[in-house]
């Protein structure tokens, strides 16, 4: 039997110290050992039963329940004041065999894998690599769990791929304590798994496009995500380049996405006519405090896998003194005007080295990101054609009403089909400011106030936007979700109401969902 360890607590915090948030009880479930239960599917189903027992226990106590993975979200989306469950040790993985596929399956079965919720992106990538496969894209690092990624819409800069949720084929959800409360949801328009296989997961099948795309970025509100079936692809290499180019050229590319007719080319990354290839990934770094007409861009191109290739890892990775970061924060709080100077001093730590060239697999390029102290990030999704305008507006706000201890970066992502996916524009530019977490003083506004001003500025300038669900913002801003998603927010709520009983809607809701009007 899977076993659960629990601990009474008074509070819980995210990895980056964005809390603390109140909490009564923290659970962690460990699977039965392989010796006692050799079949993976048995251990998977056994874990589902244990989660259902915890749900029942929570319901009987009249409390709420929320699962979380690596605590990488920077707000209270993953928290619950009553009970939380750490999914980390639930990391089974199973390849899907051709005999387990639906008769109308359009996927290559060798690319399909079922991952249990607690697998981190790193674990998923390593399992796939052992099978000669790779994820299509990931976030900038690899510590998030697969369930956490899709629940909040984690993205990289996949111009042709999209976000993590966009290669999910089906979801195995636990939506209550009863035997009928385990469901497998996949789109009716693109079925992948056979009913017979789904029944081995003790699940009832739901084939419904609207339900699937609503649950895909479910914000933790569609029940306990027990397993995720994803579509991988054959392993590939990425050539990564860091270049310093004119800001005007960087934004011309951002606004047009026309790499073919641009003066920006990288030798070896062109077609037969010498015109630039469209990259796999495009990212612009902007220090809003610098007058430099140039900026740093990171560009990646996808290549067929071949060995050998140069080792993408350095031998030594240094990290700066934590005390230096705390000193930075203290200086920023007491003397905000020093922030641009401090950012300039730390640019070599914050920004990648110009003219860096690296080759590696996706899992090697987007590798570990060790904890470096309390951090914040505010991230907006906008149509890519608004990139330059939005950057100018948010940069001006940050200079004039700040300064704020962070710098901007822009990444570009293909549109998602998820109902509440924030990468909703045909090509979404995710414009983000990352930095160290500070406390409000007489001289510097709070993070929430800064976030509110960013929303106001974009609204005043009629730039449609979305917000990254896992990042910082003024989530209490009136009408925020309706402004971002319009009728889609109601569609999401309707699907949730159809899937969950009223009692389970309450159990799987939390303060974040209530704050934004979705709970």
């Amino acid at each position, binding site marked *: 039997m899977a076993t659960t*360890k629990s*601990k009474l607590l008074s509070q819980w915090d995210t*990895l980056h*110290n964005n809390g603390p948030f109140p909490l009564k009880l*923290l659970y*962690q479930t460990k*699977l039965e050992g*392989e010796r006692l239960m050799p079949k*993976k599917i048995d*251990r998977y189903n056994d874990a589902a039963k244990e989660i259902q027992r915890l749900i029942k226990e929570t319901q009987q106590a009249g409390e709420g329940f929320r699962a979380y993975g*690596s*605590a990488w979200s920077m707000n209270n989306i993953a928290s619950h004041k009553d009970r939380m469950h*750490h999914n*980390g*040790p*639930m*990391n*089974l*993985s199973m390849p899907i065999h051709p005999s387990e596929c639906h008769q109308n399956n359009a996927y290559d079965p060798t690319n399909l894998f079922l991952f*249990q919720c607690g697998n*981190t992106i*790193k*674990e998923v990538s*390593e399992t796939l690599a052992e099978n000669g496969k790779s994820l299509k894209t990931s976030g900038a690092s690899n510590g998030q769990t697969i369930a956490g990624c899709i629940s909040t819409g984690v993205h990289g800069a996949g111009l042709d791929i999209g976000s993590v949720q966009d290669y999910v084929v089906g979801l195995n959800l636990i939506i209550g304590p009863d035997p009928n409360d385990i469901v497998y949801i996949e789109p009716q328009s693109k079925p992948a798994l056979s009913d017979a296989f789904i029944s081995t997961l003790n699940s009832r099948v739901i084939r419904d496009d609207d339900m699937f795309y609503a649950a895909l970025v479910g914000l933790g509100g569609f029940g306990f995500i027990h397993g995720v079936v994803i579509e991988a692809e054959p392993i590939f290499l990425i050539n990564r380049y860091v270049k310093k180019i004119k800001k005007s050229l960087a934004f011309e590319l951002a606004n047009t996405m026309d790499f073919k007719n641009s003066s920006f080319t990288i030798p070896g990354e062109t077609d037969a006519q010498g015109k630039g290839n469209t990259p796999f990934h495009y990212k612009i770094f902007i220090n809003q405090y610098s007058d430099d007409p140039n900026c740093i861009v990171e560009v990646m191109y996808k290549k067929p896998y071949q060995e050998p290739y140069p080792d993408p*890892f350095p031998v030594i990775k240094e*990290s700066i003194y*934590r005390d230096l970061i705390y000193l930075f924060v203290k200086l920023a709080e007491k003397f905000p005007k020093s922030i641009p100077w401090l950012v300039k001093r730390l640019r070599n730590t914050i920004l990648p080295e110009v003219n860096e060239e690296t080759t590696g697999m996706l899992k090697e390029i987007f*590798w*570990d990101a*060790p*904890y470096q102290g309390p951090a914040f990030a505010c991230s907006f999704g906008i149509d890519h054609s608004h990139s330059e305008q939005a950057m100018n507006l948010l940069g001006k706000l940050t200079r004039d009403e700040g300064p704020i201890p962070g710098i901007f970066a822009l990444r570009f992502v293909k549109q998602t089909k998820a109902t509440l996916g924030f990468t909703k524009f045909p090509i979404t530019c995710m414009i983000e400011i990352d930095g160290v977490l500070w406390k409000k003083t007489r001289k510097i506004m709070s993070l929430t106030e800064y976030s509110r001003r960013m929303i106001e500025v974009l609204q005043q300038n009629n730039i449609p936007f979305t917000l990254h669900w896992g990042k910082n913002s003024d989530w209490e801003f009136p009408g925020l979700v309706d402004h971002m998603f319009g009728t889609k927010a109601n569609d999401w709520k309707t699907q949730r109401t159809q899937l969950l009983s009223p009692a389970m809607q309450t159990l799987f809701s939390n303060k974040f969902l209530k704050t934004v009007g979705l709970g």
Partner: protein
Amino acid sequence: MKLLKLLVLTLLVSMLTSCYSVRLRNVNGAPQLDPFSDRDDYYRGMAVVEKDTVINMKLTSKDFTYLIKEEELCESGKLNMVEYRNTFGSVLLSAVTFGRKRKVKIKYVCEKPRN
């Protein structure tokens, strides 16, 4: 008096400069996490085993091997990262005991078990 000050200063400098840590981390594999931990350092959220002990060596022994065992904080019994700390005191202890007493100050995080 000046000589004494210089001596103290030299001693202080050597104590400080001889105290450092070295961390080794696997490129592959994920660290075992501990959601109940409230660490605030590099190992935030990880299950860390810390050992601070002195090993008594036999006169005939050249070196020793410290065995990493399966335990609650190291379920796999396989290492993901190790940090050892070298201090002036540990060098001194080894020197004055002719290598018979060796201080071990390490932290390690094990691989997250794969299911």
